[in-house]
């Protein structure tokens, strides 16, 4: 046995090797072209490798060399604004090396090794530094300061520290024990990076999406699943979060999905302005794109690559949001590899370890005290693509057992172009109680009450709709007809939000609250007017109400909404007089 073996068998992305001395998860170079692969099973004399590149043309007998390293990512300044494949090869570099089509056998560093950065030390000779502690900073992009940390497992007294211009591999700090630190670190993607402890989340990840922030909020450090059939809005929702959520860093993983969707992000983000910083969104974003037609083994790895990068920024004390679109394609990659290994299949052919892999992945989310003592978080939002939209399948079920927020997308709503087509009756968030305090202090003291009123109106509507289906709405008593109108207003004015409309795409919390309050105000005033003898038709159709509804597509709506409500209420009141 040695670090060199030879190929015994090739079956798609799975290659069996004899005569090699290998550990699980070692990275190997396969065949004459040196394709990158990873050891995923040991079998007597044989090692089984998943290969991250296409294997056609490879023959038995070709050599395999063990690098002795495990699959890891390069961490340091230069990650932001990058777009990578599933194994952290920058797609831009691949384009330079092989043109517009991805061929094989090309290596590329995850971050530029000779780019020069201005490093500003924040510790001095003689200081005691420990794992995870920040020793200096680099202004990585206009908005993000990259905090260079002592790698986990290292620490001691600073013997020498430099400031100035360095590339990521140059030594910037030496410790008394002789350890030399550069800005570059590597971390194996399949192992979570360490932290001190997890905290319970208490701050919402504000997304600017009304239905999410208002009814089904996600906490910073929380987990959410978005299952839905094709065309129901998973990707748009994920992209909206990548654009507008108030995370400091966004890691967007396009896992086994469309190439053009990644192009869209690449073209849009540099032009979009982050409402929180006023600078282009690209500055805070890292993208992983292993599209559906790229090798499945690299698709399997892409999720780990992404979450490891997210952890690295979390360790700097940032709030990171990670989107994985779609976790189902990741699960399918596991299934594809597993079936090539002839493993005993579990439910629907997925490997028996599917649910534990899902759980391990979402477990890497959380709000933590970092090794360096900072407060950082990773929120994970995973899209799920259930076959036929039926969420009784293993990936959806495995996800729902873990995540705390369920945004259930509904094909029927999507067909009516009710977007986001999140089903308000079946979706849930387990965070509101933990977040209510924050909402009271930061938005309005009665925020939780307004939310409760809005969601119970929707509940009542669904019960009334059942009756309407039998007798028609005109047969209902007038107060119930009003309830239906109010609920329609919630749906059409508040819940619907057009991601492609430049104004409607984002509502800050203050506006969300005002819009919800406007609905309740309409309800109260309409009720009074009707009790005083006004006709429902007249109340509903006062012109100022139409202005209120349509106004949300106009700039400065936040400033105008209160006067629009006042005007509406006046007209409603005069609808009574008109009757008299």
């Amino acid at each position, binding site marked *: 046995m040695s670090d060199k073996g030879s190929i*015994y*068998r*090739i*079956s*798609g992305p799975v290659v069996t090797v004899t005569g090699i001395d290998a550990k699980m998860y070692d990275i190997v170079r396969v065949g004459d072209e040196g394709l990158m692969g990873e050891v995923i099973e040991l079998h007597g004399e044989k090692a089984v490798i998943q290969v991250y590149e*296409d294997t*056609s*043309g490879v*023959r*038995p*007998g*070709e050599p395999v060399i063990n690098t002795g390293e495990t699959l890891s990512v390069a961490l340091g300044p230069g990650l932001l604004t990058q*777009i990578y494949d599933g194994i952290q090869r920058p*797609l*831009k570099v*691949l*384009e330079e090396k092989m043109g*517009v*089509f*991805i061929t094989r056998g090309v290596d590329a560093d995850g971050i530029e090794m000779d780019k020069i950065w201005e490093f500003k030390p924040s510790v001095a000779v003689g200081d005691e530094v420990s794992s995870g502690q920040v020793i200096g900073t680099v202004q990585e992009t206009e908005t993000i300061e990259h905090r260079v940390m002592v790698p986990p497992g290292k620490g001691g007294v600073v013997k020498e520290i430099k400031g100035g211009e360095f590339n990521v591999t140059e030594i910037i700090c030496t410790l008394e024990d002789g350890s030399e630190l550069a800005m570059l670190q590597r971390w194996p993607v399949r192992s979570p990076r360490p932290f001190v402890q997890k905290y319970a989340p208490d701050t919402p990840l504000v997304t600017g999406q009304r239905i999410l922030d208002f009814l089904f909020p996600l906490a910073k450090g929380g987990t959410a699943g978005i299952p839905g*059939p*094709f*065309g129901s809005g998973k990707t748009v929702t994920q992209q909206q979060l990548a654009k507008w959520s108030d995370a400091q860093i966004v890691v967007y993983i396009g896992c*086994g999905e*469309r*190439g*053009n969707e*990644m*192009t*869209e992000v*690449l073209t849009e983000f540099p032009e979009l302005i982050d409402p929180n910083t006023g600078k282009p969104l690209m500055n805070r974003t890292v993208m992983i794109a292993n*599209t*559906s*037609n790229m090798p*499945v083994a690299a698709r399997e790895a892409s999720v780990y690559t992404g979450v490891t990068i997210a952890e690295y920024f979390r360790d700097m004390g940032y709030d990171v949001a990670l989107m994985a679109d779609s976790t189902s*394609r990741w699960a399918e990659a596991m299934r*594809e590899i597993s*079936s090539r290994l002839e493993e005993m299949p579990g439910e*629907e*052919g997925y490997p028996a370890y599917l649910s534990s892999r899902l759980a391990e992945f979402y477990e890497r989310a959380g709000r933590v005290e970092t090794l360096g003592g900072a407060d950082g978080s990773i929120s994970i939002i995973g899209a799920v693509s259930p*076959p*036929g*939209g*039926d969420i009784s399948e293993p990936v959806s079920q495995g996800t729902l057992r873990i995540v705390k927020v369920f945004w259930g997308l509904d*094909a029927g709503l999507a*067909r*009516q*172009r009710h977007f986001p087509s999140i089903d308000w009756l079946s979706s849930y968030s387990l965070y509101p109680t933990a977040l209510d305090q924050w909402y009271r202090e930061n938005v309005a003291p009665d925020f939780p009450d307004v939310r409760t009123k809005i969601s119970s109106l929707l509940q009542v509507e669904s019960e009334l709709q059942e009756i*309407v289906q*039998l*007798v*028609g*709405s*005109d*047969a209902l008593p007038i107060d119930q007809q009003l309830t239906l109108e109010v609920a329609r207003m919630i749906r059409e*004015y508040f819940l619907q939000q057009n991601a492609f409309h430049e104004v409607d795409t984002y509502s800050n919390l203050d506006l969300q609250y005002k819009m919800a309050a406007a609905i309740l105000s309409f309800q109260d005033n309409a009720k009074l007017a009707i009790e005083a003898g006004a006709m429902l*038709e007249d109340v509903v*159709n006062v012109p100022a109400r139409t202005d209120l*509804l*349509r106004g949300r597509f106009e700039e400065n709506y936040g400033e105008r909404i209160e006067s629009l409500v006042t005007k509406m209420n006046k007209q409603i009141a005069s609808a009574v007089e008109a009757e008299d």
Partner: protein
Amino acid sequence: MSGKEYRTITDVKGPLVFLNKTEPVAFGEIVTLRLTDGSIKNGQVLDTSDDMVVVQVFEGTAGIDRKTGIRFMGDVFRLPVSKDLIGRILTGAGKPRDGGPEIIGESNADIIGAAINPYSRESPEEFIQTGISAIDCCTTLVRGQKLPIFSASGLPHNDIALQIARQAKLLDSDEQFIVVFCAMGITAEEYNYFRHDLERTGALENAVLFVNLADDPAVERLITPRLALTAAEFLAFEHDYHVLVIYTDMTNYCDSLRQIGAAREEVPGRRGYPGYMYTDLAMLYERAGIVKGKKGSITQFPILTMPGDDITHPIPDLSGYITEGQIVISRELHQKGIYPPINVLPSLSRLMNAGIGDGKTREDHKSVSDQLYAAYAQGRELRGLVAIVGEDALNERDRQLLKFSDIFEDTYLRQNRDEDRSITQTLEMAWDILTNIDTKYLVRLDQKWIDKYHPTDKK
């Protein structure tokens, strides 16, 4: 590689041949099989090791026995590509079918194709006017998109595909599309229908046809679309053509895939289709698009028939998860005598937003389309209610929506097979039918568009 001929077949199962003890054979290598009667078949290596090789035989394994000779050709499957492909009709395996000469390639291209680097793509955003209102207004097509037609047996999907092929154009150019047509397991009658229509309109001279018919080998269908796409890529990215690839019927393709999976005794996924079908289909559909630095483009129109009209069946389901939308043909509308019977509600163009609006179609397009959807969806839903409670139980708003849904189908969807509506006509007709609903109920329309475009309420 060596011209050595092996006679080491151990097993034959379905379309697969197993043989042992060969020289090292490459994964994906092309194989020829010489039968005892002298006839030749072709195949490809699916699994290879020191002891055993599994070969998938494109023409089926009928007639193969242990004495069949096998030669490994030392290379993966390649198509000779050249501009001379234009105007030719080839078999599903890429051989001349029109009596013309063999294609002499400028080069030989690997038919599996390499993935386009996502970083190297350009966003498709040029509006293609098809002249069909349902598509142009509601599920707008753009150049470089992959937009399948989800249909079912007995529905006029071929007419729609042909009408699109005939009428498709960019607004400000008269550049022609090159049509690459790929038939997989369709009947000779259907094929003739396509061919004659292309001939009639002169499009055949600007087309390449790859034809695998119902009585041609089923396994061959697995390579036919790859050949077609390889030709398309060559024409688009080496010779700057805008290529429209129509392939039909994806359902037959998927059934062949299932057949191979079963023969390999793989653990089947949903309804017996292999677990890797998503990836396999993606490797076809993702070969659409526009790439940096190249002038041409590939737009794909796959046609598939949904078994049992069921959109949740794995074939439409996995397709819909990969393609950039879908055009869904409805049996109900067809039975009402409406052509094209496109049900816009489950139909979708994901790239529409990039291709419409000011400077592309018209500024009010998005708003109008959203309003049509909302009103039609509600109107259709009311039909069910009316069947139970009668029209009298509806309020004024609902009555208008109900009536609108009929008008939408009768005058907006419905058009002739040769009726080529301009986008302006399409949008004006939309405003016209929206006058059947009081403006106050049209909450999806921006006020500024009402002021500008509403036939009666404009300022």
